[in-house]
């Protein structure tokens, strides 16, 4: 932040292009950088309130957000996506790790230290009913950021608030109304207007449309789209709805139990997901097409529920529900690595790609049960594609030693399609020790 607060006070309300040029990071530059971010909520018990454990809501995540792009974050409830949103807006204090905004470390800034940054980082909340103070008029609500930051916009607060109201598609004359006089969709627009008041660079939206009706959802999604194009905003959009996330995001992070399991650009993620969890998650979305109802073969049913984040499974956190899990998954945590350009995956046995641990071919007993829920077509197809990709990679590198790898890869693929056949003997010997290690 090279600007003094006074300078900023002048530039913020002025929406002219010239004023904004000095303020914005160039598109494509890294705006937000997160490294090893953790948030553990302590569990205290007993008279002395001793800490007996911790909910590991966010447990070491790394990502970057570039200026002008939209990062979508998806995951099931309890995977830590909302906590992550609150950490990067610094509404929560991280346990460990680092958050950098425009190259500046903001991880442990206090309330006062964060204040200048609050102009640049704003949040849109999920519930438009509880995030607006019912005793304030919407004029007061949207004008509050100016008051808090001691900013007097050009032409006065009222004029600026009315301009913001018209930007988000509300009637500027409704300045003096109270939140209860508006419908859910309109309230969400008020929340958006408030977030935009100080012309922020980064907007973190936590489930911005999930409380809204379908027809209203589309209005708000389009509004977010338009505002990004007009104002050059950068978004981090947190949502559980995969179709909404695909619609709004440029890049998508999939979270599972406090970790990012896959981070990729939209096209690659939806066309060729690599992490088994991503694949299962996408296949579970009901398709609004009655003709595909009986195409059950495409669906991957996951076993049971998400494990508790208090004691997450060892190794890969997904191994308890994964149909591809082997011994290595229970012991070694897969790192998030870039397997394809623009596609980072944390998996030992990725889909649509060369196996990362080809030596480990024996499925866990739990994985066998899980695989029973997955249609044979899906298994066969995934084995085929990973073998094909593996072969492709091999020919591209065209090395002598690569050939042996390809053999193992395809042999492994066969083993996957009928896990029982070749490896039965081996399984029998290892099965005895597998469950005990799991525990």
């Amino acid at each position, binding site marked *: 932040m090279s600007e003094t607060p006074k300078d900023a006070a002048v530039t913020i309300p002025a929406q002219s292009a010239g004023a904004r040029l000095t303020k914005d990071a160039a598109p494509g530059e890294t705006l937000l950088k997160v490294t090893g971010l953790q948030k553990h909520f302590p569990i205290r018990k007993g008279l002395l309130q001793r800490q007996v454990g911790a909910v590991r809501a966010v447990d070491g995540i790394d990502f970057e957000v570039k200026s002008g792009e939209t990062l979508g974050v998806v995951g*099931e*409830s309890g995977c830590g996506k909302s906590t992550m949103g609150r950490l990067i807006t610094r509404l929560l204090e991280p346990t460990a790790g680092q958050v950098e905004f425009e190259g500046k470390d903001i991880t442990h800034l206090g309330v006062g230290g964060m204040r200048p940054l609050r102009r640049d980082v704003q949040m849109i909340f999920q519930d438009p009913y509880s995030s607006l103070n019912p005793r304030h008029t919407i004029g007061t609500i949207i004008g509050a950021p100016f008051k808090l930051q001691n900013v007097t916009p050009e032409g006065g607060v009222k004029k600026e608030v009315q301009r913001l109201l018209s930007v988000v598609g509300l009637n500027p004359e409704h300045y003096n109304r109270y939140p209860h006089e508006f*419908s859910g*969709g*309109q309230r969400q627009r008020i929340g958006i207007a408030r977030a935009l008041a100080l012309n922020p660079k980064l907007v973190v939206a936590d489930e911005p449309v999930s409380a809204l*009706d*379908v*027809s*209203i*959802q*589309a*209005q708000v*999604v*389009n509004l977010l*789209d338009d505002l990004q194009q007009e104002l050059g905003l950068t978004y981090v959009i947190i949502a*559980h709805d*995969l*179709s*909404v996330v*695909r*619609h709004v995001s440029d890049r998508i992070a999939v979270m599972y139990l406090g970790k990012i399991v896959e981070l990729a650009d*939209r096209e690659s993620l*939806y066309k060729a997901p690599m992490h088994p969890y991503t694949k*299962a*998650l*996408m*296949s*579970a*979305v*009901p*398709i*609004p*097409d*009655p*003709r*595909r*109802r009986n195409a059950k073969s495409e*669906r991957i*049913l*996951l076993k*049971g*529920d*998400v494990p508790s984040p208090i004691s997450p499974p060892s190794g890969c956190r997904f191994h308890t529900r994964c149909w591809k899990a082997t011994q290595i998954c229970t012991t070694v945590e897969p790192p998030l690595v870039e397997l394809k350009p623009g596609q980072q995956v944390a998996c030992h046995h990725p889909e649509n790609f060369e196996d990362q641990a080809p030596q480990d071919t024996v499925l866990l007993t739990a994985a066998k049960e899980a695989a029973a829920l997955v249609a044979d077509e899906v298994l066969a197809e995934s084995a085929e594609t990973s073998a094909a990709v593996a072969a492709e990679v091999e020919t591209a590198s065209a090395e002598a030693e690569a050939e042996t790898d390809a053999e193992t890869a395809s042999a492994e693929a066969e083993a996957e399609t009928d896990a029982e056949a070749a490896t039965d003997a081996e399984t029998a010997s290892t099965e005895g020790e597998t469950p005990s290690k799991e525990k």
Partner: protein
Amino acid sequence: MTELSKSGAAVGEPTGTSPAPSSFLEVRDLKVHFPTDDGLVKSVDGLSFKLEKGKTLGIVGESGSGKSVTSLGIMGLHTAGQYGKRKAQISGEIWLDGTELLSADPDEVRKLRGRQMSMIFQDPLSALHPYYTIGQQIVEAYRTHHDVDKKAAKRRAVEMLERVGIPQPDKRVDSYPHEFSGGMRQRAMIAMSLVNNPELLIADEPTTALDVTVQAQILDLIRDLQKEFGSAVVVITHDLGVVAELADDILVMYGGRCVERGPAEKVFYEPRHPYTWGLLGSMPRLDREQQDRLIPVKGSPPSLINVPSGCAFNPRCPYADIPKDDLTRTVRPELTEVGSQHWAACHMSQEQRERIWTEEIAPKL
């Protein structure tokens, strides 16, 4: 206020002189109105449909379109006067397997409720009693309708829990609702509602509170159980994906009325009401190429106290000016048959709608 004074009479008034229908469930001209300080809320205003055994009807609509009120109406849960002194005003006919429910004795209906018809609620945490174990609650539901001892009822509870896929059912039967995860609670609710082998199952937003992976499990479970028990199922949801998965027939509600009703295929592929087009257009879809923009329905759902005159959808309808003589704003359109077993309530002529759908709407979806 004249309507208010009529309210007592409207409840349970024997309106049906028409003969019992052949369908398993038939709702005729159902109206559910709530008197409030601000005026009469017409939550359901003339709804009719039929449902056969072994079939699934999906009721879709936005919040406040009257979907849940309809389901509570069928279950007979409105008449208890739980809205203070003012009772809900219900009229019309609900025929379940030859019995008219609205004019029937409340005790009769109570005997049917839970046995012949039962319901899965949206939020399993608030629908289950926190003080009793899952097992006790299922046992209660079973013993209300069956004269068996506690042991036999408990065996039945364990059997049902096992059927809905709860691991270690003999142990979990003694757990409390808070010890279950969201998906397991919903399974327990399903077990409870199916314990008496009901012939009609109403599922009100059964998966809205659940994650997609769990939703997929529950949808599969409902489908399998329906096959097994051959019940008639009414699924109420705002998610078109869920109805496409489950429903044979779809009923689209708007402002307390049915605007389109027909077989699932027809409603998805040849919808004949602008509101249905709006719903299909506002939904981002995973099975299609990325759309540039969604096509939202402008405005917001109507107030049920002041439902717009004429077609309730007219203030939001982009085609409201096509019918002549301001028809959309003055005359309420009735459901007309637009195909076999397919009805829609719109003033535009069939040809106009067909043309708009095929030329303007369908290519953009």
